[in-house]
């Protein structure tokens, strides 16, 4: 699975520009799916027919990553930008970014009397151009860039840009590739535009209208020095979400996931996330409502170019979902 994670995290795919990620995942799952299609927002829907339980299960992991969108190019070739998703000015400063065509740039800032005044609107991307014309030959207004961030490994730990949520995509790809027959029809949905407002999940869940849904996404941890209090740590297993800002996990889904984890001896922890949400937030409010939950991958430094996960946690998440599907997601 490490290779899949590397391949997917290193692919360019800010919100609304998920084409390359979609193409890679399509290739990875093509021979193991009964149907692969994409929809008007750019979601990739991978269907696996089940053994006739009559249930439809939707699994969702988002393909998009946060990024920067070029809004204006000045006479000297500096590119002004806005954030796509939750981009922090302090984290962005000094980082390398790369556009879809491979052009790289550096994030700089105007003179600032107090650093706490730093805002994205006072920053710019320098791609090394010396005029507007030169810059415009490489980057157009509306183009998006993402952080650079190679994947590094040390033992159990992996660090890369875009772990949020390519590691979730990798978990779903891995499951599609290795899982045997399941009782339920399963829709593996690789969603678009999660970072800007869980938008792809909204439309794909409407189309599928599943009986139950599980999102796979990263979550914050409270295990670093003087971190916000949060009872999720790296290395303690799959995080079963209880609540975040967009979702209260359906009690049946939570009970079911816990029972699978306990009977299979899969390490798990409960997650209560005070800020943030996932695709399940959109899915559970679809049509007349869908019982939904989230299997979260504990991750440090989310929304930075260096998001860190533990491989044993990732494996635990994959195994938990795989066993759940094999059993049939009956609540």
């Amino acid at each position, binding site marked *: 699975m490490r290779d899949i994670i590397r391949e997917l995290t290193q692919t360019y795919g800010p919100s609304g520009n998920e084409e390359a990620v979609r193409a890679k995942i399509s290739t990875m799952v093509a021979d193991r799916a009964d149907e692969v299609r994409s929809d008007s927002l750019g979601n990739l829907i991978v269907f696996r027919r089940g053994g006739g339980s009559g249930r439809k299960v939707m699994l969702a992991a988002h393909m998009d990553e946060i990024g920067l969108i070029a809004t204006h190019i000045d006479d000297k070739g500096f590119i002004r930008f806005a954030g796509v998703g939750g981009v922090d000015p302090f984290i962005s400063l000094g980082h390398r970014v790369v556009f879809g065509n491979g052009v790289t740039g550096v994030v700089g800032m105007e003179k600032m009397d107090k650093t706490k005044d730093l805002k994205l609107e006072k920053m710019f991307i320098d791609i090394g151009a010396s005029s507007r014309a030169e810059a415009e030959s490489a980057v157009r207004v509306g183009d998006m860039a993402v952080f650079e961030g190679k994947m590094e490994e040390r033992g159990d730990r992996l660090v890369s840009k875009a772990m949020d949520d390519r590691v979730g995509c990798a978990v779903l790809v891995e499951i599609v590739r290795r899982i045997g027959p399941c009782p339920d029809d399963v829709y593996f949905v690789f969603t678009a535009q999660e970072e800007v407002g869980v938008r792809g999940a*909204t439309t794909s869940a409407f189309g599928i209208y599943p009986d139950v849904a599980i999102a796979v996404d990263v979550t914050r941890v409270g295990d670093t020095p003087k971190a916000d209090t949060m009872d999720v740590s790296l290395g303690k297993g799959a995080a079963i979400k209880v609540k975040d800002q967009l979702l209260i996990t359906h009690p049946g889904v939570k009970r079911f996931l816990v029972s699978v984890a306990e009977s299979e001896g899969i390490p798990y922890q409960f997650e209560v996330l005070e800020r943030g949400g996932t695709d399940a937030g959109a899915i559970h409010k679809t049509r007349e409502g869908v019982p939904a939950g989230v299997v979260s991958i504990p991750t440090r430094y989310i929304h930075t170019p260096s998001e860190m996960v533990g491989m044993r946690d990732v494996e635990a998440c994959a195994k938990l979902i795989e066993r759940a599907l094999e059993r049939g997601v009956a609540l």
Partner: protein
Amino acid sequence: MLLERLTEANGVSGNEGEVRDIIRREIEGMVDEVRTDVLGNLIAIQRGDGPTVMLAAHMDEVGFIISGIEKDGLLRFEKVGGIDDRVLPSKRVVVGPDKVPGVIGLKPVHLQEPSEREEPVKADRLFVDVGAGSREEAEKKVKVGSYACFHTRFERLSEKTVKAKALDDRVGCAVLIEALRHSSDLKRRPFTLAAAFTVQEEIGLRGAGVAAWALEPDLALVLEGTICADVPGTDPHLEGTRLGDGPALSMMDRTSIASKGLLTHLVRTARDRGIPFQYKRITAGGNDAGRIHLTREGVQTASVSVPCRYIHSPCSVMSMKDFENAVRLVNAFLDSIEGGLRV
């Protein structure tokens, strides 16, 4: 003039009837079907063979609702939609269906504490004065719950520049009416045009969602009046748009990312026809596209906006050239559908 009638009509969110009546009368002869839905959206259909194209513009504007009447006859109010408190004092308003004239008042400068002068006055310290000397006298003219609306005449400032209230989004309504007029003249219509004049955009894009649900469009264009801050003291990258540079195409705002295919198609259409256009340079704000593009299984959606300086104030300024070019672009877009849309 249509734009004059539209902007001088009052239609604060939830109270769009006056605007709706003007539009309905204007378009009745051009469409196959026209109806008002439960929320108050005015829906008009021109049937044709091909995809259903939704064009949407919102009828509502920012304004006020009267929330209380003081003993001395002055009216308390709440804002409806996003209005900067600093633009309120001394502005003329009309209250209620009888359009009772009033003025937004504030304690005079002479009596303000120095500290009060340093901070902009908050709306909850302001009141509307309709000239009543007592609560009883005020109650004869207005009711708690009445809407109040800025009172501003449409005027030409120069040959190509106009000032008016509510250009956001009566200019979009005007572009949409012109599109219906253009499309009604077509001999053959390779699309069904579904026009939605929506309600309650300013308080959360509320009308557009149900309109799109009912219409099930294949693609949608939102027609807007948008932020234009090309004034002294604004850095070029924060201007949003520039007056006179043509209709603005949004790449992304708070509520949606434009359909890439549709945006590319619009740019190609504008270039082919020699219609000037600009990109909106900021991602702030949102519009009906936010709801429309997420309807059902998703709808390819983009926005075409006319730059309007000082929007969400009693008085905005717009270039008629931008308006005319927005009309040209939307009409050219409809014409291009025959050639096959690649979105």
